[in-house]
């Protein structure tokens, strides 16, 4: 870190307030995960931190030394590490990018390399900082204007102007979008409802295949083992899956053999020769 620059020091953020007991556990878990990522107090992300660091160079943003800025930033991150402050991921991504930029600024340009030069990248970063700074100032100027309800006032006793309709409905775009989102995401929150009527369980399949395998001396298609009325549709899928799983189990027990001649070819099975 250069001496003429006032070092900015990372600080710990105050830990979040404990959650009330009645808060759902899912929320607690999520919060706990988030709490592991300690943000850098007071900065709205890496670009904001860079802007603050750039100001300490006490030059016009146009003249900021990007190389020096990269060093300042890396110094800041290093100090955070020593203070055992865990930085949010985006700060680390920025640090990696700046380390890369720094090395490219210091090395002679590689004529083989495509894409923007290190100087282009540095100039673009300077542009981004200047633009963010300009937007900050614009926001401050906007908020400092003579605002309605604070400096300028509207008619205190407006007279109702009749529309043709006698009823107007109060509904905003937000309400509309939320209603749609609610409908479209409703299924995401619906607990999984188990459909017993159309499910053939593996226990049922095991029992069935055990009973039938004694008769299968020759290779027989798996589909032959499906119960009546379970040959197609949703029930067919369930019965096929259960029966296949059951045959795997029986093969493991050494009771039968399974064969498939090619990918997607019918699965066939037979009693294992020698098994009773």
């Amino acid at each position, binding site marked *: 870190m250069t001496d003429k620059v006032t070092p900015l020091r990372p600080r710990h953020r105050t830990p979040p307030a404990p959650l009330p007991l009645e808060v759902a556990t899912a929320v607690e878990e999520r919060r706990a995960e988030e709490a592991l990522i300690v943000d850098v107090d007071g900065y709205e992300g890496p670009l904001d931190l860079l802007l603050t660091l750039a100001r300490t160079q006490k030059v016009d943003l146009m003249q900021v030394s990007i190389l020096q800025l990269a060093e300042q930033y890396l110094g800041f991150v290093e100090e955070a590490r020593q203070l055992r402050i865990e930085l949010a991921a985006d700060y680390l991504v920025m640090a990696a990018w700046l380390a890369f930029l720094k090395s490219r600024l210091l090395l002679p340009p590689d004529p083989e390399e495509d894409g923007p030069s290190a100087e282009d990248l540095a100039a673009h970063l300077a542009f981004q900082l200047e633009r963010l700074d300009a937007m900050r100032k614009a926001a401050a100027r906007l908020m400092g204007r003579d605002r309605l309800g604070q400096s300028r*006032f*509207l*008619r*205190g*006793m407006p*007279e*109702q*102007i*009749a*529309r043709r*309709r*006698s*009823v*107007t*409905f*109060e*509904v*905003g*775009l*937000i*309400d*509309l*979008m*939320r*209603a*749609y*989102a*609610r*409908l*479209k*995401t*409703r299924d995401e*929150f*619906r*607990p999984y*409802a188990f*459909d017993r009527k159309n499910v053939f369980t593996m226990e049922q399949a095991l029992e069935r295949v055990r009973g039938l395998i004694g008769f299968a001396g020759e290779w027989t298609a798996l589909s032959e083992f499906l119960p009546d009325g379970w040959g197609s549709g949703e029930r067919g899928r369930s019965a096929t899956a259960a029966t296949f799983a059951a045959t795997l189990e029986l093969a493991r027990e050494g009771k039968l053999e399974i064969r498939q001649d090619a990918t997607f070819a019918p699965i066939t099975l037979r009693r294992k020769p020698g098994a009773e």
Partner: protein
Amino acid sequence: MSEEPDFPPPPLAEQERMVEAMLFASAQPVSLRDLADRMPQGADPAEAVASLRRRYAGRGVELARVGDSFAFRTAADLSFLMQTETVETRRLSRAATETLAIIAYHQPVTRAEIEEIRGVATSRGTLDQLIEQGWVRIGRRRMTPGRPVTFVVTEGFLDHFGLESARDLPGLSELRAAGLLDSRPPGEMSVPLVREGDEDDNGDDTRPGDLFGEEDD
């Protein structure tokens, strides 16, 4: 013996501006005393009001005396421009909001499609209400068996919701990304969506009030 004010009062023209602004912005008629309380020391609201009344005489708006107070009022001969018919504002029911959202996102859409998305039958009144409001109209018939009527949103809808076209409505992932879509819809936390043994249940949509679009809370 009254103390002399430190500064001379503002000129009458300036006092008139002050009175004009205060009377305009106030939600009630304002008395001379209230005006004086808010004006700089030494001001003479009575004279300022009198001068302002003369200025507004014969204009579209007049400075009326209401008891001891003053207020701006529309000139009586222009009341025809106001047509003070009462305008009632009501919240759009949830059923209607949902139906409207579906039409906006899926137009042209048939009634059967709306019902499929909402998971409940749409009462006649809901669509009628949206049509009457001028937000929905009947589009082309769908060239499928039964040739069902489709519904589309109107210019009036775009106008009300500040949209340039219905195609500009943000999609689901955009809603989520913009934070407009809570990971869990508010107010539904405590409502069990599906109770055991009724897979067809559609949350609290099935309450009768919703079906008839009368749930105005």
